[in-house]
């Protein structure tokens, strides 16, 4: 049985401007120990997916569908049950580590509290375990850090502490929402290396939400490309990067300048802007920005399997030709 089974997850928000359709019928499975990357641009619904799974949606948000974790339905759980699962079985780390930590509590207090609360440990053993965890995430001089407060530490350090906190109870699932976006390049790579090591060593499954395709390439087993709250393409990481089947995945891959390729002088931008989530277009949501759109795209395409365990939401029979090579010729 899959660790996490998400079926037809839909998230909407009531706002003064109308109903925002953040996530529209999302389905995927996650196996134990697997790392799933959710890629998409802002407004693609990737963060709301995570928050809905954690039961942390904003007040005006509503989630429907089903999120089963080890067979247990997470949507519609009471607050106390949610709290029990959060932190012990599933934990989450956020984009902005400094504000995710409580500024009025020392690092040590915050780590110890997690263990005394979720694991019923006494303070002594909890402290020892917390220090050991800080060592694992490569924090130097953990005893001293335990006494410090979040504002005394750098962003990178705070993110390590968030990761340590997330892993304290040995959760089965760690959801990381843009964990390195707010950090500098060199610190980013430290954290990514750390995440890679941890996912190899432990059996924790990771859902990694990011817009950085490089990070996905380095860390994930499986990738889910989201656009306008829907999955556009889902596949193992290697085939997806080598041979993207959906025009949007292809566009994403080609729009980033790369250090490992010859520079062709011009980037292949995806024209236009993401759709308005209040009034989504009929048919394929990517249609207006797609180079390959044709008559059929006014219908809404289904997410359909092809090849070996790959899925795409597109009417195109053949793969879109990579544009960059055409232009170079």
């Amino acid at each position: 049985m899959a660790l996490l089974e998400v079926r037809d997850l839909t998230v909407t928000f009531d706002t003064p401007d109308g109903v925002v359709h953040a996530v529209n019928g999302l389905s995927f499975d996650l196996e134990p120990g697997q790392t799933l990357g959710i890629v998409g641009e802002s407004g693609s619904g990737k963060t709301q997916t995570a928050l809905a799974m954690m039961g942390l949606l904003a007040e005006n948000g509503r989630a429907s569908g089903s999120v089963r974790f080890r067979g247990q339905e997470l949507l519609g759980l009471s607050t106390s049950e949610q709290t029990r699962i959060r932190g012990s079985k599933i934990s989450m780390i956020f984009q902005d580590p400094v504000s995710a930590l409580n500024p009025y509590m020392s690092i040590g207090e915050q780590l110890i509290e997690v263990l005394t609360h979720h694991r019923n440990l006494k303070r002594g053993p909890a402290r020892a375990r917390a220090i050991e965890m800080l060592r694992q995430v490569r924090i130097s001089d953990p005893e001293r850090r335990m006494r410090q407060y979040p504002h005394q530490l750098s962003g990178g350090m705070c993110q390590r502490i968030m990761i340590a906190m997330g892993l304290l109870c040995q959760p089965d699932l760690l959801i990381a929402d843009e964990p390195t976006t707010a950090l500098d390049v060199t610190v980013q790579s430290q954290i990514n290396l750390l995440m890679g090591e941890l996912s190899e060593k432990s059996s924790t499954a990771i859902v990694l939400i990011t817009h950085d395709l490089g990070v996905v390439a380095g860390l994930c087993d499986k990738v889910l490309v989201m656009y306008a709250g829907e999955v556009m393409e889902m596949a193992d990481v290697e085939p997806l990067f080598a041979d993207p089947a959906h025009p949007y995945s292809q566009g994403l891959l080609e729009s980033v300048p790369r250090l490992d390729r010859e520079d062709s002088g011009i980037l292949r931008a995806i024209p236009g802007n993401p759709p308005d989530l209040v009034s989504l277009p009929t048919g394929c949501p990517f249609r207006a920005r797609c180079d390959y759109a044709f008559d059929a795209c006014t219908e809404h395409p289904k997410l359909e399997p092809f090849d070996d365990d790959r899925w795409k939401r597109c009417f195109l029979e053949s793969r879109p030709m990579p544009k960059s090579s055409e232009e170079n010729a």
Partner: protein
Amino acid sequence: MTAESTTPPREPDAFEQAMDRRPVKGRSLWVDAWHRLKRNKAALAGAGLLVVIVVMVTIGPMLNPWDHEIPDWDHYSTPPSLETGHLMGTDALGRDLFERVMVGGRISLLVGLVATLVSLFIGVLYGATAGYLGGRVDNWMMRAVDAIYALPFMFFVILLMVVFGRNIFLIFVAIGAVNWLDMARIVRGQTLSLKNKAFIEAARASGATERQVIVRHIIPNLLGVVAVYVSLTIPQVILVESFLSFLGLGVQEPLTSWGALVNEGAQELETAPWSLLFPAAFLAATLFAFNFLGDGLRDALDPRDR
């Protein structure tokens, strides 16, 4: 898309073409705020109630046959009745209460409005200057504000009254002169945060002088906060005036205000409860209305919503 969109000729025909298609109307933040405010029932009700009260106190006394000074010798302390023509009854001296509540309302609202305008004027000027100049000037200006804050307000007002005698004008000045402190602090804070906004730097980079930056960018962006604060200051001032009048330091007979009326009514609570009920009801309704409107405005204008 970029190729197609960036190659057109740069010469005037671009504009002519643009003019063939009429420019699309934009939706300013004010319009946006108005749309949000319209959805806020409490704020709208508050605004509606205020309009009713203002209209009442403005034209009420003109339609009412009674005078607020001259007693009706036939009716002392009579309850409200259509028969006698005293819609809200009369007070112990036989004066028409409706007339007095309306006239009192004029004074109360006027005090609220004028004192708020005084504090608005001083506060915005002072706060914006301190905030925009910043540094040492700001430090000294705000320490001065702190020092004035430390003066006991009531004591200060009472002292003024005693020294200069009691007149309405002085009440306006006294209340305004103290209330600007809050306004100055709020405006200064807002200016400080505006000053660090990228669009202010952008304006400076595109050659705007300090004066232009303040007039074009700082002040228009302060208006939202100021509007909210004004709508919350007016009731506060009305309340202060009522309190002063209640102490007997406010407006003097034969003129009156809601606070003075409440004071009188409280003394006759047992014999003539209506003489407390009506002014108190008007006072409370006005305060509620302003506060609802103010809260609504704050929600509507709050940029965090965007």
